[in-house]
């Protein structure tokens, strides 16, 4: 029986360089992981962190609640790895994100794949840099339900936490 052990931890605002650094840290531990688990973890981690800085990098200019800085961690538990990402998010972004998460939560794998492909079809030539399918991709990969929460920080921000389990087998 494993004791829960944190194998990766970072607190602070994320950017591309930090995500790369964390990926390399994960890679250093990859020998201890099953290859398919490692591949899943890599996909989920990148999509979680890219999603994380999408809501923070250009949108949050000043933020001085140190207790609510973005955090990413991976915890090694008995039967799965628990990936947790938290970040502040503006109130104005919450509804759209919540709707997206709720729809993901309700769909099974075939529904997720159909929705994923429909978005890709619609977004091929959109002006958005990314098609906005990162969370759906995570759900397709892990095939477990997400846990998420929004905690109030002040009248401008909420603290969004997304928790994902990756089965070890």
């Amino acid at each position, binding site marked *: 029986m494993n004791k829960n052990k944190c194998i990766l931890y970072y607190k602070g605002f994320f950017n*591309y360089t930090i995500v*790369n650094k964390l990926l390399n840290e994960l890679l250093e531990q990859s020998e201890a992981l099953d*290859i*398919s688990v490692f*591949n*899943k973890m*890599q*996909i989920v981690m*990148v*999509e979680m962190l*890219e999603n994380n800085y999408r809501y923070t990098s250009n949108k949050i200019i000043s933020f001085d609640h140190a207790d609510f800085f973005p955090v990413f961690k991976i915890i090694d538990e008995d039967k799965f790895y628990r990936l947790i990402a938290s970040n502040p998010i503006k109130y104005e972004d919450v509804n759209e994100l919540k709707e997206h998460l709720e729809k993901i939560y309700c769909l099974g794998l075939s529904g997720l*794949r159909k929705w*994923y*492909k429909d978005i*890709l*079809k619609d*977004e*091929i*030539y959109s002006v958005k*840099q*990314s*098609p906005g*399918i*990162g969370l759906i*991709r995570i759900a*397709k*990969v892990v095939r477990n339900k997400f846990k998420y929460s929004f905690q109030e920080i002040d009248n401008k921000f909420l603290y969004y936490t997304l928790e994902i389990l990756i089965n070890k087998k």
Partner: protein
Amino acid sequence: MENLYIESTEFTPKINFDINNRKFELIGTSRPEDVVAFYELIIFKIGRYVNNILHNEKLEDFHFNLLFDLDYMNSASSKYILQILDYFKKLYYKKAKITVDWYYEDVYDQIFEDGEDLSDVIKIPFNLRPRK
């Protein structure tokens, strides 16, 4: 038109657009910091090439191979890979022989499923090939 070759980096793929041998290869990891900047020139060159072929070649005799051998791609990259494929789709629907080889490590890998999904979106059959 000139060939285009871009060496891979830790987080960007190798690109080999070989006009003389009629092949396009995208190999490695696709997670560029600025995905638009990375794929912009590639897509521009492919667009120009495809338009030139559409106007100057007998398409029934034209063949072109696209090879994707990715060990990782982020969701942002999938949009630009689809744009590349969308240009070749114009030739495919005019009876040119366009083959797409999509390599994967394991059928349980996300890359395998990505190949199935992208093929379904773009409506061109992919040869899903296990990496040797």
